[in-house]
């Protein structure tokens, strides 16, 4: 594993430290002994084949999954030792764009984004309205505020999911396949959105993707899950140079010739 722990574009301070993490569901091992730091302000891509455990890994970062063994530290605190209140504070530092958007289908688009505000802030109705519309404008969906979520297309659902993820001003944004299933143009719009969020809001980003084009475009470092382990970790530059077999064949399969 030729890994780099000193990305040049970001701070040296690890925000999240993953230590010897292993996860099994019953008898099925997903991956084992994952060690990884996420630095403040960087954009880390997590790549790997479908079913290799990318979503499961990322859901350990805010304790949506509990590991079989190992720790995840945030600011030096093991998040699996926290009680519910402590965990809530950690969780609210994250915003997540889920793979299918995970919009609440019983309420409208507007209410989906307003939901965290209603539950966790004491904002007035006008403040909520302003903040929601601002978030919707950021994802260019202000016109869809009153539509039911069932009427939205896949790309729109992802953008609404993104608006909901940023509404409480998180420090870390996790994107689970933000561009999968979208046409190249919409994908590019989402990539630009991710870049602009990370630049304008100085957000630390963790992006799960199969799409090498967007990985190379938006990320500082790449983590490659393969063969039930974190097979390769390094910067985008190192990825381009890498002679690692499985990594190269994964990248080549996405029709992105490196040579």
């Amino acid at each position, binding site marked *: 594993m030729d890994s780099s722990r000193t990305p040049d574009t970001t701070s040296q301070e690890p925000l999240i430290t993953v230590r010897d993490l292993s996860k099994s569901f019953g008898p099925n091992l997903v991956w084992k002994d994952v060690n990884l730091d996420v630095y403040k302000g960087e954009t880390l891509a997590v790549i790997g084949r479908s079913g290799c455990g990318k979503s499961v890994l990322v*859901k350990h970062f*805010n304790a*949506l999954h509990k590991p079989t063994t190992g720790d995840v530290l945030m600011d030096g605190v093991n998040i699996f030792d926290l009680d*519910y209140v402590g*965990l*809530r*504070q950690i*969780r*609210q530092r*994250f915003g*997540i764009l*889920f*793979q*299918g958007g*995970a*919009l*609440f*289908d019983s309420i409208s688009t507007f209410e989906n984004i307003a*939901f*965290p505000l209603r*539950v*966790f802030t004491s904002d007035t109705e006008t403040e909520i309205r302003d903040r929601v519309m601002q978030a919707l404008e950021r994802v260019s969906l202000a016109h869809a505020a009153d539509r039911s979520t069932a009427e939205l297309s896949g790309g729109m659902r992802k953008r609404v999911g993104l608006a*909901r993820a940023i509404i*409480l001003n998180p420090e870390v944004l996790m994107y689970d396949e933000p561009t999968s299933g979208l046409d190249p143009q919409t994908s590019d719009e989402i990539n630009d959105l991710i870049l602009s969020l990370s630049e304008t809001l100085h957000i630390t980003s963790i992006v799960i993707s199969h799409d090498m084009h967007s990985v190379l475009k938006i990320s500082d470092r790449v983590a490659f899950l393969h063969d039930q382990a974190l097979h390769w970790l390094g910067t985008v530059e190192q990825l381009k140079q890498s002679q690692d077999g499985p990594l190269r064949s994964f990248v080549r399969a996405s029709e992105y010739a490196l040579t």
Partner: protein
Amino acid sequence: MRFTLFHEFGLYGTLLYQSLRSSLESTTYRMNLFQEFVKIGYESIPIILLTGVFTGAVMTIQTAYQLGNAFIASSIIGSIVTQSLLIELSAVISSLVLAGKVGARIATELGTMRVSEQIDALESMGLNSVSFLVVPRILAGMLMFPVLYVVAAATGLTGGLLTGVLTDTLPAFEFMKGARLFFFPWDVLFGMIKSIVFGFIITSISCYKGYYATGGAEGVGQSTTQATVLSCMYILVADFVLASLLL
């Protein structure tokens, strides 16, 4: 097999324990409780009226048929119908019907939320999803089922009485006389206790099956089927246990 059964009871118990603990966080589920009152209680009234009327009607016709040749006062038909409805049928039959309606709805709702990561989304915001989703449903079930039992019993008695009159088997005053003769308030209380237990069984099993659903749309379908089948089974088991304990 033994492992999975054990595992299931463990998970079910854990969910109940978490629900009990988070039932103190009333601010989290307050907003969903009223909605569940409406969905479990109010929206079940039509089906309960229908079930009630037919149960009462069938009881009168069949009791009259069974006692047809016996040399006893016909008002005894009223007594038998009333007691059967109050002690057993109004609680059990309406709960079996509601296992289909309420149980399937809850399991599908929570199952869909689970597989489309909506539950993860709630948790990731720092919300206690058990308190938000499970507690209001179980609570509304336990509070609404006894009310529905009373509705079912009242329509059942009305249906039984009207059937007696309309089919010329039993005049209304005879039915009333028989009903009064063997009416014990304890029977109504017993029926209400049963329906509280059945309400708990249906909502808790359906929440459990939905909350832990896996495997996409097909998995949700399986969870829903299991939720209704298990609810019906455990209603019958609980009916037996309660009868042995309380009668």
